[in-house]
């Protein structure tokens, strides 16, 4: 009973936080809302019996990935000017069309999932089970994920290095 109440609270929090994240002009504010949203989703994960997923959500999503955002935003140093620009871009005229599209899509999704019935299980799927299937039937997917991460690593390193080099060269030439 308590889980159901908690679920609705968490869901509400997640939705509100996401809406706020999407509409903020200041990147850091948006980011913090986003983290709240992710945490709320983590709560839902926990409630529907996926504690392992909830942990990962907090550690990696809300932790690692969001920190990356924070770093980058700090590096870019957008400041007041950026905020003003963002506010200007967020005029109703701009988001009216996309909003209609989104609503249509949402309605369609809801209709499609309308006839899905049945509760989710409360019995938790343990980390062990997840681990067993990860390195059992899904081992190929794990390999692919590994490759993907490696590619991401190399890619970001390459892009970031060039950024620094360029910076360095330009600074050097301007001196």
């Amino acid at each position, binding site marked *: 009973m308590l889980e159901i109440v908690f679920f609705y609270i968490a869901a509400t929090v997640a939705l509100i936080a996401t809406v706020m994240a999407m509409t903020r002009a200041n990147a850091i504010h948006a980011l913090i809302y986003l983290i709240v949203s992710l945490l709320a989703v983590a709560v839902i994960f926990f409630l529907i019996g996926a504690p392992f997923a909830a942990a990962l959500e907090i550690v990696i999503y809300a932790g690692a990935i969001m920190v990356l955002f924070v770093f980058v935003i700090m590096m870019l140093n957008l400041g007041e000017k950026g905020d003003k620009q963002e506010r200007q871009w967020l005029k109703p005229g701009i988001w009216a069309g*996309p909003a209609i*599209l*989104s609503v249509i*899509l949402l309605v*369609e*999704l809801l209709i*499609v999932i309308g006839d899905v019935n049945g509760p989710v299980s409360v019995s938790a799927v343990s980390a062990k089970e997840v681990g067993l299937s990860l390195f059992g039937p899904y081992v190929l997917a794990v390999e692919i994920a590994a490759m993907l991460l490696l590619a991401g690593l190399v890619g970001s390193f390459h892009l970031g290095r060039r950024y620094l080099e360029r910076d360095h060269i330009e600074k050097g030439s301007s001196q």
Partner: protein
Amino acid sequence: MSETIWVIPLIPLLSSVMLMLFGSRLKITHIGFLGVASVGISALLTLVLAVEFMQNQQIIQESLWTWMEVAGFAPGISFYFDGLTLVMMSVITGVGFLIHLFSTEFMEKDPSYARYFAYLNMFVAAMLVLVMADNLLLLYLGWEGVGVCSYLLVGFWYQHNANGQAARKAFIVTRIGDTAMALGLLLLFTELGTLDIQAMVGAANQTWQIGDSIPLIACLLIICGAVGKSAQLPLHTWLPDAMAGPTPVSALIHAATMVTAGVYLIARTHGLFLLAPTAMTVVAVIGIATSLMAAFTALMQTDIKRILAYSTISQIGYMFLALGVGAWSAGIFHLMTHAFFKALLFLGSGAIIHCLHHEHNIFKMGGLRTRMPVTFWSFMIGSAALAALPMTSGFFSKDQILLQAYQLPDLGPGLWMAGLLGALLTAIYSFRLVFVVFFGEANTEPDKDTGWRMAVPLSVLCFLAMIGGYFMIPVAEVFPASDGSHPAHWVEYVSISVPLVGLLVAYLVFFNRRLNIDGLANSTVGKSLGNFWLSGWGIDWLYDHLFVRPYYGLANLLKSEPVDGIYGLIVALNQTFNHWLSAAQSGRMRWYLASMVAGLIILITLAANLPTGVLQ
């Protein structure tokens, strides 16, 4: 001789080919010799043939090879020789030889001497094929062959655009008739299964009754061909312009031989025309109408050659009249005598033009009687024959035509009277020519009179023009016999006297000026009528506005290829789509996203509407 008549057209043809291939390397005298001798040999062979024919009256049929053989259509390269062919061959080779001889002097100074004789020899060959052909397709070969030679010779002095224009006009106008004739051939073959003239006429008599519509259509189509070639209404306009060619060419092609091919064609296929009396009436009416129209026009012309050209048209009109009233042999007889005296007149005018440095206007001549006596006497005799003064050759032939026309029921007397009017006009314009050119004051100074190569043909033709009327042409076997009855004597007397009246009128008006017609000519009516006649009854103008200009306009209109517009439309459509699609590729990420979402919506909508079971 009778086994190898195919040699007769072959010799001029070979000579022509040789002149074309090696003409530029031969000496002038050799060229002339080759050109004249080849026709001369043909003429001699024709003479031999004639003598043989007179003795045994034997019709010769000779087949060289089958031209083509497809599904029962098997015209041969084969020749047919009878009295009618003999008359035509004699005229072509005989007069042709004289004109070739005349040309050697006339064209002496021309740089394209070899080309001239090559064309002229080829013409003789083609003309001989035309008259000797045993089937209509081979006849058509000769028919078109002479047409091309005529084109080449009219446009012989190609450096002047006007000559080329005249040549093209001559070819295309006759081509209109030729095409109709070709259709006639198609119809005859389709209906009768053969184009062999004798067999065809035989089959026609078995298949059709007199007055049937198919022989009428066939005959009308053949008439179109004949009308085009023989310069009759309504396809006569090319002939006066065709005078742009060298004068001997006019004498040979546009007076003596080619233009009478239409007469020959109708005479040759008279078996068909007898089945279609309406067609014969058409021939007669075309003939007399043309004859009068041309005679009026000739009255007003000032160019010596154009006078003669219109007079040729007019005389061929008489021949058509003869054919139309069934006076076949009279028509052919007139064809022959006309060949003599008209060739004579043309050569005479050629001599004048040659000696006066290409002067064509008769009012700039005058007084040539004493300076060019040979030419003067040729012209006198020629004009007398043309005007059909008694005892000349033209008298006998024209008289026969008029008398037989008179005997035709219903239309007869009308045709006769019209013919008489034509004869009167003929006498007036021919002696107008003589009086203006040879009498009166001299306006120009000729170099000299003609040389022997011109004088000999002139004299021989004078002789023929005088006595030609006493020849008996051997065509009795060819044509059905006429009933032989004679009209009342007064008809004959009137016929004889009319040309004399004409001569008198010409004498009074143009020689001693008793009769002054200046007032009449200068009145408004007279002037406009004069101009009307001068322009050949405005027919050229009419055709120009009715056919030539619209055709040019059409060609110009279509020149930019309207059909391509349809394909251009397809191209434009594609380009528009291309434009739209490249506009979609704007590089704006939000736009891409929006379209992705839109696509997603469509996909989900489709998926949701699919039958259940697909989703689950």
